[in-house]
Each structure stands twice: as structure tokens, then as C-alpha cells.
């Protein structure tokens, strides 16, 4: 334990990890070369479909956003004032209702 730590470190460094198996290196090489092959047509179609869907989604969002932000014209506010019913209208309406009820009861 009295040995300086640097010396101990140097001794450990003398140990060499086992080199990789040739077969493993070959397998890695073949996997990497497979990855670098041009992608099949189906991949192209998939990406085309994804791009079209994304474009359509953007268009829909754009339309919705545009509609919700359309400004109303800044004209004078229109206030609709309903004329109050003239005096006597209620009584006439009641009388008509009474007449109908009377006919049905008879």
C-alpha cells in the first residue's frame, strides 16, 4: 500500500485488453456496408406519404388560424332596440286564448 499511486497506475496500464475477434470486425463491416446501401423504394414512398400528410396538416392549421384571426370591420356598433308591445296587445292575446278554450270546452 506504500507504493506510490502513479507507479501502481503504470502497472495497471501494462495490462492490455484482448483485441477484437476478426469475425466480430467482419460482422461490423458488413452491417456498416448494409447501412450505407441506397434505401429501397418503399422507404421513399413512406417518406413521400409522411411529407404529404405533414403538408396537409400545416395547410389545415393555417386555414383555421387564419379564420380565427380575421378582424371584424371597425364600424359603429349596431344596437337593436325592440319596440315595446303597445298597451292592449296582452289583453287581446288573452281574449283570443279564452275564445279558443271556450270553443274546445263546448
Amino acid at each position: 500500500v506504500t507504493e506510490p499511486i502513479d507507479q501502481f497506475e503504470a502497472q495497471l496500464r501494462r495490462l492490455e485488453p484482448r483485441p477484437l475477434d476478426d469475425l466480430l470486425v467482419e460482422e461490423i463491416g458488413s452491417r456498416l456496408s448494409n447501412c450505407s446501401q441506397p434505401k429501397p423504394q418503399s422507404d421513399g414512398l413512406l417518406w413521400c406519404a409522411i411529407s404529404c400528410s405533414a403538408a396537409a396538416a400545416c395547410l389545415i392549421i393555417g386555414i383555421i388560424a387564419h379564420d380565427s384571426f380575421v378582424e371584424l370591420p371597425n364600424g359603429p356598433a349596431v344596437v337593436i332596440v325592440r319596440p315595446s308591445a303597445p298597451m292592449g296587445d296582452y289583453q287581446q292575446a288573452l281574449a283570443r286564448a279564452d275564445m279558443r278554450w271556450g270553443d274546445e270546452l263546448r
Partner: protein
Amino acid sequence: LDSDDELDDWRPWLARHGPGLALFARQWTVCVADAEDAVQDGFVRFWQARGRSRGEGYLYACVRTAAMDLSRSQRRSRRRETRVAIARDPQAGASAFTPAHAELAAAVESALAQLPAGQREVLVMKLWGGLTFAQIAVATGINPNTAASRYRYALQRLQTELAEEVSRD
């Protein structure tokens, strides 16, 4: 660079880092074959993303992730099979080091297994992978200062454990 040169470029990388990576992966896996699988998966992942890579630290991070994934996915099924596999496969229990200094290597492997995982991985990356603490920080996601202190603790603990073997070697 044409495409063939670009494709061949991976060989020097693997030649330089392969042995260290295999030893590193061995810290999570139960046998040589699993460690080699982790190196393969990690290296391919690294090479495919090399444009965005951050060098050796990222390479070790890829192998670390591959080894951990492998270890996690196979833990349940392997538990039963491991003993049988080790008994059948002479490479399964083989040393992760070259035969030179075989006695010390065996003692070091045994002492490494006693270290906490965090200290062990830092020690392996630094000593046999040749990574700097900054690169280790990239690989493990810890602070470089934490990596340095873990390394010091691991080395001290290993020195205590191996005092006898080192003086004999």
C-alpha cells in the same frame, strides 16, 4: 473522400478503440459474446450518427447504452442459461486481458468486480480506453470532476486490494 474511403474509415477507429470497448462492455455483460454484441451494436450506432458525434466520449456512450440495453433485456432469460453457457463456451469465462501478466490480470478482474459500477466504468475508460475526464463525462453524463474523484477512489481501492499481487508481479 469517395464513398469507399469513407466506408473504410471505420477500421482505424475500431482498431484503436475496439479492445478498450470490449473490456468496457464486459463490465455489464455476463460473457465475452454479450460484450462483443454490445460493441457491435454500439459501434454501428456510433458510426451511423458520426456526423453528429462528439468523438471518443460519444463512442463509449453508444457502447455503454448498447451493453446496458442488452443486459436489461437478457437479464431474465439469461439468468437461467448463463451457467450452462459458461460451462459450454470456453470463451465465455475467458480473461478480458491478453495472456501477458496473466496472474495480475486475473486478480485485477476479480478486484474490478468488487468496485461500485460508477467507479469501475470510470477506471476502465481512463486506464484502458485512454479517455480524458472530459470524454468520460460525455460518455457517462457525469461532471468531469466527479469522474476524476471516482477514478482516484477506484485506484486507491484497487491498490489496497492488489497490494500483494502487484509486489509479486
